């Protein structure tokens, strides 16, 4: 008895979990949660990343999945159900039904029925019953599968989202023109790996050959693009001109152009004997204000020197202060401050190919290049999510395009005349179907005269 009670209780739980009624509760609760998340300033953090929102999402997906399985069985039964026994009683019980008398032969009556129904694209099957000849006309038999496909797509999407969340990588790299990046964890400027990303770094290299900037009349960039080259095993395997909406893809890693760029001046530090102590490009940060600024500070290795630098692409001296007329590097200059420990040893402007001299050393600004930021993403879930989108679209269009409609006609002979009992029903759009049925009946009656 207890086992039976348990089974009954479990059955009831299962029936509830896979019920469409549950979806009518879960949907508005989910929508409310979305509204709360949308209204809170930190909705993304507090709501959409929370355990309860994740649980709610899973509940909705699971309910959809279970409902869909349940619907699949129902759809199978409906699609492949045996034809009902057509009798006058069966037809009269239908909401749409009528009776027409035809003065002609049975063959002519059948031809008339077929002609009217085929002109409306109904597929017809003829049979014979005890009462007479039956004609079953049907449209959209497989329409119900559209709903199954649409709801099944959410499972595909969920699988994609889970794969995304557990295996993806998102990072950023900054590359100076001519510089090469090796795809390894430690070489990213910022990196976030999902728990199951594992050891999936590929070790190939990406070289930035050139950055292209489209500048407006003030020299502000309006468009950015880059030439990237992929090297794998020491060989060049791919070249791509990366622009917005056209990233570089290699071995599942996607390199996106970002609008972040800046300058990298080349510094050479020499001692009094002319020995080179330091020779490197230094990537300056882009400080985004009303007018962007390119500045940073860095230490020179092996020395106590700390350098603060601001780059002026098209410099002009206004009093003792450098300003830039535009962002086109026509006449570049640096505003330089050098400290040795706490003591400032140099401050002032340094033009291209000029030097700052201090403590017997000479720091020369000998050139510059652009550098650019690239977003790197590896997400194996994306194709699955997008496949789910297409399946959903296909399913929903199918569902609304095809509506199952049935019309039954029973032809019986009565006192030398043919009696047509006609009835029909549709699974949806019942009002429209009633009108269609009336029009069919009127057409048959009109042609009977």
């Amino acid at each position: 008895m207890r086992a039976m009670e348990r089974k009954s209780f479990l059955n009831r739980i299962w029936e509830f979990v896979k019920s469409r009624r549950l979806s009518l509760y879960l949907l508005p609760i989910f929508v409310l949660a979305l509204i709360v998340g949308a209204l809170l300033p930190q909705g993304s953090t507090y709501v959409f990343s929370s355990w309860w929102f994740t649980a709610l999402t899973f509940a909705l997906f699971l309910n959809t999945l279970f409902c869909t399985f349940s619907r699949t069985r129902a759809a199978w039964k409906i699609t492949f159900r045996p034809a009902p026994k057509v009798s006058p009683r069966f037809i009269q019980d239908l909401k749409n039904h009528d009776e027409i008398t035809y003065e002609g032969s049975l063959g002519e009556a059948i031809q008339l029925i077929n002609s009217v129904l085929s002109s409306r694209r109904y597929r017809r099957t003829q049979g014979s019953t005890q009462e007479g000849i039956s004609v079953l006309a049907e449209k959209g038999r497989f329409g119900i599968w559209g709903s199954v496909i649409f709801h099944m797509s959410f499972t595909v999407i969920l699988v994609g989202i889970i794969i995304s969340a557990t295996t993806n990588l998102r990072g950023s790299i900054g590359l100076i023109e001519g510089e090469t990046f090796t795809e390894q964890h430690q070489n990213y400027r910022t990196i976030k790996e999902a728990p199951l990303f594992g050891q999936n770094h590929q070790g190939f290299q990406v070289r930035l050959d050139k950055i292209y900037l489209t500048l407006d009349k003030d020299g502000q960039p309006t468009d950015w693009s880059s030439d990237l080259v992929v090297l794998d095993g020491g060989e060049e395997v791919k070249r791509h001109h990366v622009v917005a909406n056209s990233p570089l893809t290699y071995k599942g890693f996607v390199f996106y152009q970002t609008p972040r760029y800046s300058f990298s001046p080349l510094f050479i530090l020499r001692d009094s004997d002319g020995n080179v102590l330091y020779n490197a490009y230094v990537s300056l940060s882009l400080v985004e204000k009303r007018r962007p600024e390119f500045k940073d500070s860095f230490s020179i290795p092996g020395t106590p020197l700390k350098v603060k630098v601001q780059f002026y692409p098209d410099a002009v001296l206004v009093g003792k202060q450098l300003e830039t007329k535009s962002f086109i590097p026509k006449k570049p200059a640096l505003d330089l401050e050098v400290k040795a420990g706490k003591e400032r040893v140099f401050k002032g402007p340094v033009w291209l190919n000029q030097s700052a001299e201090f403590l017997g050393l000479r720091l020369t600004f000998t050139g510059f290049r652009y550098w650019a930021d690239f977003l790197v993403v590896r997400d194996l879930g994306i194709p699955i999510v997008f496949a789910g989108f297409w399946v959903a679209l296909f399913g929903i269009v199918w569902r609304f395009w095809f509506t199952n409609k049935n019309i039954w006609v029973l032809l019986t002979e009565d006192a030398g005349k043919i009696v047509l009992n006609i009835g029909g029903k549709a699974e949806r759009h019942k009002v429209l179907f009633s009108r269609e049925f009336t029009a069919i009946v009127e057409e048959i009656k009109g042609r009977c005269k």
Partner: protein
Amino acid sequence: MISWEIAMFWTAVVLYAASTVLFVTSFVFDKPGWEKWALGLAGVGLAPHSVANFLRWIAAGHAPYLSFYEVTLSLTWFAVLIFLLTQWRYPKMRAIGLVVLPVSFLLLAGAILASKEIILLPPTFRTIWLSIHISFNKLALSCFILGAGAAILYILKERSERKGRVKNFYKQLPDLADLDELSYRFNAAGFIFFGITIIAGAIWANNAWGRYWAWDPIETWSLIAWLTYALYLHLRLQRGWRGGKVAVVAFLAIIAAFIAVYGVPLVTKTIHSLFMAR
């Protein structure tokens, strides 16, 4: 000197306003002949409206879908066009003009107060997916407006029939069953188009920014609207809800859709608002 674009814009506003007056008069004062004049004026108004859209497109170098002014200019064009086409095919639809035309002309008149600054198309916006995203968004919103229009008329007529005081105005409206069916069909079509909008937006976002979903406020409100329409369809198809009862859900959904398009960009910074708030 007034630009041709603004002149065409105001011509359309005036014609839609006149059409609205004639529409309302024809129904309220039972003058069926005026309905044809109202439709004619709306059709004529569509011509300068089209020219205004075209001139804006030429001046901006892109279709009019950035900024409040452009979004309204193109959305109302879609709404009026879809209404005129469907009422021509299905004359029973005409009554929905009582909602579509006033809403369109008021939105359009409001847009004249917005900034008309031309916004350059940023690099991430130069993609076919954006065009698909925006076109289907406009189709969806237009369908939702028509669906809401049919629902409003349903509620008004049903209330008058329930009170037993059916004025001539309500007698001219389609049957309740027809209004209910029209509302459902437009909302269902809008649901599909809005789904395509979200999908195209996700594909575009992934191509441009390396992520298909980031809980951006507009993305979130669009999902809210879409799921609310899903709830509307479930209630109708599963529970057999009809008429005023289910119309409330559709009204909430259309509010969410308009919050996504108009509300969010005005109050918060998103990928979209950069170009809407100006």
